Each structure stands twice: as C-alpha cells, then as structure tokens.
C-alpha cells in the first residue's frame, strides 16, 4: 500500500460530519469509474488483492452487508463475515476483545455495523486497521449518506442548491444524520419533516429547515428521502399508530401530485409499504430507490479503495489492477 501520504480520508470512515466537502466529492468522483465494474460480465478487478477485510455485523442487515461484501469481492479482497450470533460475542466477549483478536490475525480493514452509537469510533480508537462504519446505533451511516448523494447527483447533475427533505423518524435515524451532514457540506439545502416527537429536540441547532406538515415539505423540496419508520417506536410511545402516521406523514401519490414539480423519492430501505411510503410512490417513475442500491456498491468500492491507500487520480487505472 502507498502509506499515509496517500490517505485522503485518513485512517477510518466513521461519519460524514468529520469530512470536508472536498473529501465527500472525492469519494463520489472515485465511485464513478467503479460503477462500470458491476456492469461487466466478469465483475472483478484485482485492486485489493491480498487485502483482508472483516465484516463485523452485530445487527441484522441484508442490503448493507451484501453491498459491502460485493464491493470487497469485486475488488478481490479476502473477506470474512462475523455476526453476533454463532460467534464469541454470544459468549459474552466484549467488542474490544473481539476486535483485538481479529486484528491479531493481521487483517487490514474492519467494516462494522453495531447497535450502539459510537461503536465504530470505539473500535477505530483501539485498533490499527482501517475501520468503516456501516451504521452505529442512531449516530451515522456514512456510506448510506454517500450513496444517497451519488444517486441525487446522478439524477440532478448537481448537489449545490438542491432542496432535499428528510421525512420521518429523524430522532432515531443514523441515515438522517449522515444525510444532513453530507448534503449540507456539498451545498444542498436540507429540511426535515416528521412528528416533533420523532425529531431531536435540538433540531434547530442542526441548522436545517423544519416542516411540521409533509404537504409543505413536498411543496418546498426537489427530493424526499423517506425514512423507515421503525415499528418499535410505537411501543416507545412516540406516535399513536402506524395508521395515523400514514395519514399524516405518509408519502402518497395524492400528496405528490399536488407538488409544483416532480419530486425524486429516495428511501434507505427496508420499506414499510403503506406506512411511510405508499407502494405506487415506491414503485413509481420518480423513485430512485433501486438506483440507490446499485450505487451503494460503487460508493463502498470507492471508500475501500481510498482507505486502503488508493490514489484517487488512478481510480480509473485501478480497474485493471494498478493505481495503488
């Protein structure tokens, strides 16, 4: 590897809040050439040959885990998946012990998904390997934020000045936080919309627009990022019912039809159809939900490449095996 001199992102990717606009743009630009690899018949390049990556998933995940694994495999890294069930975690091993034991096997990178906010940083502070946050509690999910940005940029050909409203349970959403930081840094205008019981009390200090009514958000926005409403929020007493949530905040075709322009619809998945988003919106012409998933692989390849010391200007060449 090229060493610290070529570490444009630093050692780890823990969130979008600590990144600069230039770093975010660099990741998005680096993802562009990687998109093409997934379109080939043989979806594999030798860029990360010999690198060992552990995917440490302490929470259930399909999309993110598979997306990371494809990104790693298409770059020819050797990967191992560790979950909380069927591993030493189930025997009560602490996070730091798990990580140190893995590192003792001389790994290069750890991708971690964990239910506790700060878990990725906790790990990054204690091991030498690169750490990529694949979602930590209600803190950040930076690669999701990046793939949302890439998808919006594909669609609008710009991010600066774009009006994006995040709709739903912002309080408990790591996707929302990564979107807010990422979008603001690249010059987009950001709003949030949802019941006040599901917005952080200090939302005003995050310097985003707040809409209490989804109709107003739709009138304002170029794009909506619709968050998954976690069903356990009802037991927590945050909202009275899913039925009412859908009636008041659900993104429906009727509501979108009254908008002054066609809105692009994002959703990080998995969707609750008929709750936060209606099926005809999710499956409709302005939904980019599956583009997000496709872009997820490219963005994660870019992050893996840059953290491993890959040089951004050689990303194109990297596809044939050089560039590190």
């Amino acid at each position, binding site marked *: 590897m090229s060493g610290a001199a070529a570490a444009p992102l630093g050692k780890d990717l823990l969130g979008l*809040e600590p990144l600069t606009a230039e770093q975010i743009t660099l990741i998005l630009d680096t993802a562009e050439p990687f998109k093409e690899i997934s379109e080939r018949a043989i979806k594999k390049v030798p860029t990360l040959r010999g690198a060992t990556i552990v995917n440490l998933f302490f929470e259930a995940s399909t999309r993110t885990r598979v997306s990371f694994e494809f990104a790693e495999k298409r770059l020819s890294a050797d990967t191992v998946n560790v979950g909380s069930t069927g591993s030493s975690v189930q025997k009560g091993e*602490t996070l730091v012990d798990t990580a140190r034991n893995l590192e003792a096997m001389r790994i290069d990178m750890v991708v971690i998904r964990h239910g506790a*906010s700060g878990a990725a*940083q*906790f790990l990054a502070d204690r091991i030498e390997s690169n750490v990529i946050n694949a979602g930590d509690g209600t*803190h950040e999910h930076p690669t999701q934020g990046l793939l949302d940005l890439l998808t919006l940029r594909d669609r609008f050909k710009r991010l600066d000045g774009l009006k994006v409203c995040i709709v739903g349970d912002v309080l408990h959403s790591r996707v929302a936080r990564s979107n807010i930081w990422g979008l603001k840094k690249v010059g987009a205008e950001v709003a949030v919309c949802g019941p006040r019981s599901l917005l952080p*009390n*200090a939302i005003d*200090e*995050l310097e985003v627009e707040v809409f209490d009514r989804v109709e107003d958000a739709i009138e304002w926005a170029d794009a909506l990022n619709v968050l998954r409403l976690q069903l356990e929020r009802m037991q927590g007493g945050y909202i009275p019912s899913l039925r009412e949530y859908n009636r008041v905040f659900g993104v429906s075709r009727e509501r979108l039809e009254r908008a002054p322009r066609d809105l692009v619809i994002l959703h990080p998945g998995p969707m609750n159809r008929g709750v936060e988003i209606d099926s005809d919106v999710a499956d409709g012409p302005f939904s980019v939900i599956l583009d997000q998933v496709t872009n997820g692989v490219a963005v994660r390849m870019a992050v893996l490449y840059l953290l491993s010391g890959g040089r951004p200007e050689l990303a194109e060449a990297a596809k044939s095996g050089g560039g590190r």
Partner: protein
Amino acid sequence: MSRPLLLRGGRLLDPSTRTDGAGDLLIANGKIESLGDRVDLGGRDDVDVLDCAGLVVAPGFIDVHCHLREPGREDVETIATGARAAAAGGFTAVCAMPNTDPVTDNQAAVGFIIRQAARAGAARVYPIGAISLGQRGEALAEFGEMVGAGAVAVSDDGKPVASAHLMRTALEYARTFGIPVADHCEEPTLAAGGAMNEGIVSARLGLKGVPNEAEEIMAIRDILLARRTGGHVHLCHMSTRGSVELIRWGKERGIPVTAEACPHHLSLTEDAVEGYDTNAKMNPPLRTAADVEALREAVRDGTIDAIATDHAPHHYDEKEREFADAPNGIVGLETALAVNITWLVAPGIIDLGTLVDKMACAPARVFHLQGGTLRRGSVADVTIFDPDTEWTVDPTRFRSKGRNTPYTGKRLRGRVHYTIVDGQLIHRREE
C-alpha cells in the same frame, strides 16, 4: 494518647470562625487546643511540629456524597481504599451512599460500614441509610435503627424516589431523627435510557438525552413536599440552571432545602462526551456552559450549600465499552480540591475561604456532623494544602481503586499536603 502536634506558620483559614491569617495551631488529645499568631509551647518538648509555611490550614473537608462500593463490589472500591483516597484528597470524613449490594437499609448493614471504617483508620466514614427497603421505592427502611447504628442521613441515591407519597412520608418520618433526606432528583420516565445531556451534542452523537426537566421536576416536587412536611430535603448533585432557580425559590420562602453540586458539574460541559468518552458519562449528565455558569453563581451566592464529589468508582472493563452500555460515574475524592481551585478559585468566581466553607463547614452544618471548624475544643480534623502548585492528574497514582476520571492528564492547581483526623496524621503527601 499520642503526642501533641503543632501546625506551625500556616495560613489558618476557617470561615466558621471568620479566621484568616498566618498563625499556629496546636492539637492535643484529639482536639484543637489553641490557635493564634504564635502558640507558646511554654517550654514543652513533647510536641511534634509540622512546618506549614506557605500552606493553608483549614477544617477537614467533608464529602457528603460518595460511593465506596462495599459491601458488594470490593473489586472496584472498599471502605478502606475509599477512606484512604478520601484522606489523600484532604477529606477527613465522607458519607457513604447506601446503594451497595446488599443495600445499606438496616442497622446491621450500617454497623458493618462503621466497623470497616474503624479498621481502615483513614478518613471517617459516615453511613447513609436507604430511604426504602432495597432501594425499591416501596416501603420505608427503619430510619431510627439505622440512625442508632450511626447513619447520618437517608437516601435512595442512584435511584429516584418515584413515588411522591413515599418521599413525603420519608421527609415527615426523618424529622423525628433530625436527619436530612438526600434526594437523587430524576424523573424516571423522562430520564429512561438516557446516556448524556439532551441537546445538540446528543442529537449529533445519536445518544439518548436526559433533559434538564428530568432533574427539575423532581427538585420542585420535593421542595414542595419539604414545604408541606417541614422535613429537610437535601438535593444531591444539582446540574441545571433551572434547578438553581427552584432552590433559590425554595430558600427565599424559608423551605428547609439544602443542595450540593459536584466538581465535575462546575468544571465540565457536555462537550467532554465528544468522542464517546465514557469517563464523561455520569448521572446527572454533564450539561451546557449556561448550566455550569448558573451553578458557579449558585455556589458563589450560597444557593448551593456544599460541594460533594459523588465519587463513583467503576472497573476499567465496565467503562471500556460502548457509551450507552457503560455505567455512570467518575471518581472524585482525589481531584475535588484541585478541580475546585482550578475552575472556581483561580478564575475568581469564589475565594479560597468560600471554597473551604463549601467543602468543610457547610457539609458539617447541613448534615449535622462534628468537625468543619477550627474552633478551640472542637475535634482535630484538619486539612493542610498548597493552593497554588500545579500538578498533572495521573490516575495510576490514585489511592482509590477507581481510575475513571475525565481529568486524566489535566494540569490542576492545588495539592493536599497533610490530612489530620482526630489529631492523627492520616495522610502525608508523597515526593
């Protein structure tokens, strides 16, 4: 009986007797025998002399709020290690909270603490008994028997008394024995699951916050219950500007309310949590700069009576984990004086005399304890410290078993040189 001890040439500083000036202090038979510009030994040659030039000689500090973990968690602290840590921090007496395992909720448990403290031979340890059996918030513990065995107050600290009826009864019942009810103010449904202050930092870090109102709702509930019952409520570890307003409101009306604040709430803000530092995790949580400012003013104007440490040792492994899962609390006995000097005295918020009042005289007054004064004939519990020297906090040197402090590596001002309990030198500064 040991030889008399002459503290020669220190700055005698005792707000309880309005003493502040250079002089000598003679201790004999465990009592303060005399003090003045120059104590005349009259040719006696059986006196030990301690040179106190450049040092402050003050009434021994009293911590009305600490957790010594014995019985139950002797791996993180014992009464002996806690009492030695106290002595090293200049405390001649500490009050041990009853959230032990088993809970200190009966006279036998209180007696155990008294015996362990006597064996340790360091700082005095006064047990605080539980308000409710098992701290379960249901049935009152036997205050009378616990006081008979040596308890000086009651508290369910660590847990709020959720039932207003139980708190009312406790305040009424405590009047018989003349003890304060030390109150952990936390509205449990608002605070549930909270890991830090609710605000912009918790929103950014994705941690569940505890709003100021969780403390303030209970503070005003119990101030009102103190007004109703005439019982003495002592509000523990106050952390918000709203609480300060409520205490002021209560005191202006003559309600029997007293309050303490902790050195960490007077020096640090929620920003210390940044990076998910579990040594900045405590309950109540570190608040905002506006709260810290209001608390400092409340210490200055007397709204806050005493400064107490809430010393809460935890095992390294328990703090070395995900933030939300780490336990609350930090150790404080060995840094309290220096933190208070560094953040309260050095910036000119209070003078050294006021600090001695908050750490020694007021705790004795509020909890009706001996000491807290250099008055002739009173018990010879004395702390001698250098208010100016800077030092760097190195937790590996603590006498406490706990290493969990947010002040690691910080340069602080003020060091304890000698701690004297009952006329006996129980701590002498090393180096």
